[in-house]
Every structure is written in structure tokens, then in C-alpha cells.
């Protein structure tokens, strides 16, 4: 029995370890590559231990950039990506909270119609409506601006649905107690609903921040100026078709840098995130 137990304990761990290795090994290789010089990498015999060029490579990546392909330090791109991801995440959450609040707590004409229209946009992600959306953004002269970069990505049915589901589980009596306690709708929203939603908001923030950070197609279309590039685009641009011209050590450093903010967000928000997915403060 004990033997069997051991085996049963061991097997899942083995599977998990293999999974971790599969995920972590490429990241490790990328990190190693970012610490050697271009020559070592391109002659095909890069060792699996950190090299001597860590500081130099990261300094060049962040403050100078590649010499030809991106023409802009990665620091600027990270800032661009950060602004974009934060704006998208915060914007989506703000809009979704308010629209879910309206749909759940107010009886206005065509309420369900409004809800279904929001719902249907689930079927229309940016990729599907990319041409008309691009046209609108271009006509509004929002190309190469953060507004153009973020606003079309902010409208979000997913978050609205999530918050709607959450709001529907909040007991009606809390609204009624608030009414009797002299709190108007906005006061109820701010004083009661928001504090109760905080874990869902955190979960949403993690998901949407990563969604925003990883955007590729839309920034590619909207940004033309070098100083508006985002880091995800930069990685792609750095890898030039003639392999020899790629400054692999910088591309890898950029990849590592691109991973850091999402990792940071997940680690910081992890506790709230998990709480938001499994329980609610009620």
C-alpha cells in the first residue's frame, strides 16, 4: 500500500517536472544566449552556462538598441508596451465594471438588447474587424498615438460578462440595505460593489495586462514611427531573415526583458488572482 502511494505521489510529480522542464528550458537557453557575444552564438557551439557579457548585452539592449533593425533602445519600447498594456487593462476593467453595473442594477429600456450586443462582440475580436477599425483610427488621425493603439482594444465583452456574473451573485439585500442607508447608486457602486469585486478585478487585471502586453498585430498596423514600437514587435524585427545579421544576443535579451513585466504582474497579483478565481468575499 505504502509502495503504491509512493508511486502515485511520484508519478504526478514526474509529469509536472517534465512539464516545467519543457517550459523552462527554452527560457533558460534564451537567457544564456543573452549573456554571450554574437560570435559565440553564431558559430553554433554556445555553452549551456552563463557567459561573460551579461551587463554589456543588457546595457546595449535597454539603452542603445540594435544597430540596424529596430533603431530604438528597448527601454523606450518597454515603456511603450507598459503604457499600452496598462491602459488596455485598466481601461477594459473600468469600462466593464461600469457596463456590468448598468446591465445588472438598472432597469432601462432595451437593457437585454444592450447586454446581447455586448455579448455578440465576443465574436468580433480585433483581428476580425481589423480593416474597418484601422480605417476609423486612421480617419481620426490616431495612427502612431497611444489612443489609437489602445482604445480599439479596450472594448471588452469578456470582462463585462465576468463582472456581470459576479454582480449577480451579490445578494439583492445589500442593494436594499444601501438604499435604506442613504447610499445612491454611485455610492453603492464605490462603497460596496467595488470593494467586493476587488479579487475579480485583480484576476481581470492579470489576464488583461498580459493580453495587452502580448498584442502584436494591432501595434504592427498602427505604429510606424520607431519611437512608438512595442517590445513584442521589436523581437520579431530583430530577427532578420538573413540569419547572420541577427544580433542574437540582443534579441534574446529583449525576449527575456519582454517576459519580465508579465511575470512580475503574475507574481505580485498571484494571491489575489487565485482568490478571485476560487472564492469571493461574501
Amino acid at each position, binding site marked *: 500500500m505504502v509502495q503504491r502511494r509512493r508511486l502515485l505521489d511520484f508519478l504526478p510529480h514526474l509529469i509536472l517536472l517534465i512539464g516545467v522542464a519543457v517550459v523552462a528550458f527554452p527560457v533558460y537557453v534564451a537567457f544564456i544566449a543573452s549573456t554571450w557575444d554574437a560570435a559565440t552564438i553564431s558559430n553554433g557551439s554556445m555553452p549551456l552556462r552563463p557567459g561573460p557579457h551579461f551587463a554589456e548585452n543588457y546595457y546595449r539592449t535597454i539603452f542603445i538598441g540594435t544597430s540596424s533593425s529596430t533603431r530604438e533602445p528597448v527601454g523606450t519600447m518597454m515603456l511603450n508596451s507598459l503604457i499600452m498594456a496598462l491602459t488596455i487593462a485598466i481601461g477594459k476593467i473600468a469600462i466593464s465594471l461600469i457596463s456590468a453595473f448598468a446591465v445588472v442594477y438598472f432597469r432601462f429600456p432595451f437593457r437585454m438588447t444592450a447586454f446581447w450586443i455586448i455579448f455578440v462582440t465576443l465574436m468580433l475580436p480585433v483581428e476580425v474587424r481589423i480593416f474597418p477599425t484601422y480605417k476609423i483610427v486612421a480617419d481620426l488621425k490616431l495612427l502612431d498615438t497611444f489612443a489609437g493603439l489602445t482604445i480599439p482594444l479596450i472594448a471588452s465583452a469578456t470582462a463585462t460578462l465576468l463582472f456581470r456574473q459576479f454582480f449577480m451573485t451579490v445578494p439583492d*439585500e*445589500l442593494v436594499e440595505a444601501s*438604499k*435604506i*442607508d*442613504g*447610499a445612491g447608486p454611485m455610492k453603492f457602486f464605490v462603497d460596496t460593489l467595488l470593494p467586493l469585486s476587488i479579487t475579480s478585478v485583480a484576476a481581470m487585471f492579470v489576464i488583461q495586462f498580459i493580453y495587452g502586453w502580448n498584442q502584436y498585430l494591432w501595434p504592427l498596423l498602427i505604429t510606424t514611427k520607431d519611437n512608438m514600437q512595442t517590445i513584442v514587435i521589436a523581437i520579431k524585427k530583430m530577427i532578420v531573415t538573413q540569419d547572420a545579421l541577427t544580433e542574437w544576443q540582443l534579441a534574446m535579451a529583449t525576449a527575456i526583458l519582454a517576459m519580465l513585466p508579465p511575470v512580475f504582474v503574475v507574481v505580485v497579483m498571484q494571491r489575489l488572482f487565485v482568490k478571485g478565481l476560487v472564492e469571493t*468575499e461574501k
Partner: protein
Amino acid sequence: MSDVRLQSVRKVYAGGVEAVKGVSLEIADGQFCVLVGPSGCGKSTLLRMVAGLETISGGTCSIGDREVNEIEPADRDIAMVFQNYALYPHMSVYDNMAYGLRNRGTPKDEIDRRVREAARILEVEPFLERKPRALSGGQRQRVAMGRAIVRKPKVFLFDEPLSNLDAKLRIQMRVEIKKLQRALGTTSIYVTHDQLEAMTLADQLVVMNKGQVEQAGAPITLYERPMTIFVAGFIGAPPMNLLDLPASGLPGLSLASPVSGPVTLGVRPEHLELSTEGGALAVEVQVTAVEAVGAESYIYGALGGQGPEIIVRIPGRDLPAIGASLRAIARSENLHFFSRETGIRLN
């Protein structure tokens, strides 16, 4: 003055359900009014209309000398205690009680004074900094009461406030609510399912049925002189024996002064006593079941051997054998006669 007056108040829900069909009630200043009735009879709806949580479809509701039909709940000067307490989960006990006062712009030191006073009265002082989830059901109940009393409202509204508590705590809180209400002298409307709560708390007991008031009055009046068959059957536990008397009479039942017409006779189990003497009413029953509940026992029997069931309460635990034939009598002042067509009291 903070009396509550309802004049032919009606409620029609969207979808056409008429939940309250013209209720008129007067609840005097400081009076404790209890609403009882079967599930779905419109008690909560009526209470919520007084609170302003439901719109009033017809008639008027006044609190004090002000008609409140169109007034927001916050401005009606009422406080409500909900069945599930509805405490704000993210606020401390102190904030839960202070919230309503803060929204009204009460000065800070006044809020503090009132909250601490309420906490003292309700014995929740040790928990002021805790969140509701860290309290037991009874403590939450007290906090909910505290939230109501700090506001010093004109009217307290309770919707089955004790139904989530266990039996012992329920009795304890019932006594406390009554004491508190007496001490504060605040007009109260209280909805309950519990007979005992209704009888013990009420100055005015209102029995509702199908959206209408069947009878309103002092609890003892409703017990002694129920005006309809419904009230007769609803008030009292175990329920009153109700027997439909055909013109020919029932086998095993004899009345000293016979009645005519289609009549329903009512007599409470506690008003029947085992005796061989004559009485205004005498029934012969064959015992089908017995229940000993401690100081008293209930005998279930079939009238005349196979007629309708009759319950007799006897003191003590001296139980007859199943199948035995017994004779029970009742005095004339304990007999209730109702018209079988209209359900209205005849005597």
C-alpha cells in the same frame, strides 16, 4: 408621532401577479405589529412597500403625518432588518453600523457615540473591529439590529429576522427584540412564520391570506375569537379541530344546542377534556395515535370510529392505548361556528 397608516394598499408585480390586494391597517405610535400568514401571501411585499423597496401600485402609505408613496427609502426614516442580515461583508462591524449615519452627514463624534451606545446595548462591543464573516449567526443578527437602532428611525421593519437562528437563540433574541422595542418605543412591523414569535411579540397581530388581511387585533383576541375559518386554523398549535357539520349531524358528535345550515364547528385541542359528563359539545373518538411532548400529550383520534380526525390535548403522560374509545367534552364558550360558504364566524 410615528404611526403607520396603510389605506387600500395594492401591489401588482410586473407580469400581473397581484401580491397585495387592498390592505388597510393602522399601526399606532410605538406599537409592535406582527404580520403572519402562509408562504406567498404577500407579507414581505407589504413590508417592502412600507420600506420603499417596492413601488406601491395603489392606495396610500403614510408614516407619521406624511404620505410616503413617492419618497425614497432613505428619506422615509425607517430601518430594516433582513432575514440574511445583509451586512456589508467588507466593512467592520463598526462601519456597518456607522455607514447610514455617515451618508446622512452626521458629525463624527455623534456617530461614534451612537454606535458605541448601540454596541453596548446589543453586547457586540468586543467585535466592533471584526468583519461580519468572523461573527456567529446570533452576533450578526445583533449587528443588523444595531445598524437599525443607531439611526433612531421612526419605524423598524423586520423580515423574518430570526429564521436563520437555531431554536434556542431564536427564543433569546425574541425576548431581546421585544425588550429593545419596548425600551426605544419605536413603531415596528415584523414579518414571521413562527406562531410563537407572532403571539408573544405582537401588540397587534395581522393574519394575511392571499394578499388580504384576514383579521387584525390583539393576539389573544385572534386566539379567542377568530373571525374566519382561515384565522381559526392558522393561529394555534396544534391547529384547531375544524369539523364540517352536515344538517344530519355527525356520528359520534353531540351538541347541547343543535345548529342549522351548513356550518363548520371549531374547537381547540386544548379546550377538549376527557370526561364522561355532558358538555356543550361531546365527541366520541377512537384513538389512532398519541404524542407525548413532555408536560402534555396529544391524542389523535377518529370521530365516531371512522370520521374526521380530532386532536385532544391532555395534561401529563397518562396515555390511552391505541384503538381505545374516549369521550371528550368542551364548554360552550370554547366553541367556534363558521359559515361553511363564506368562512365567516357565526357566533
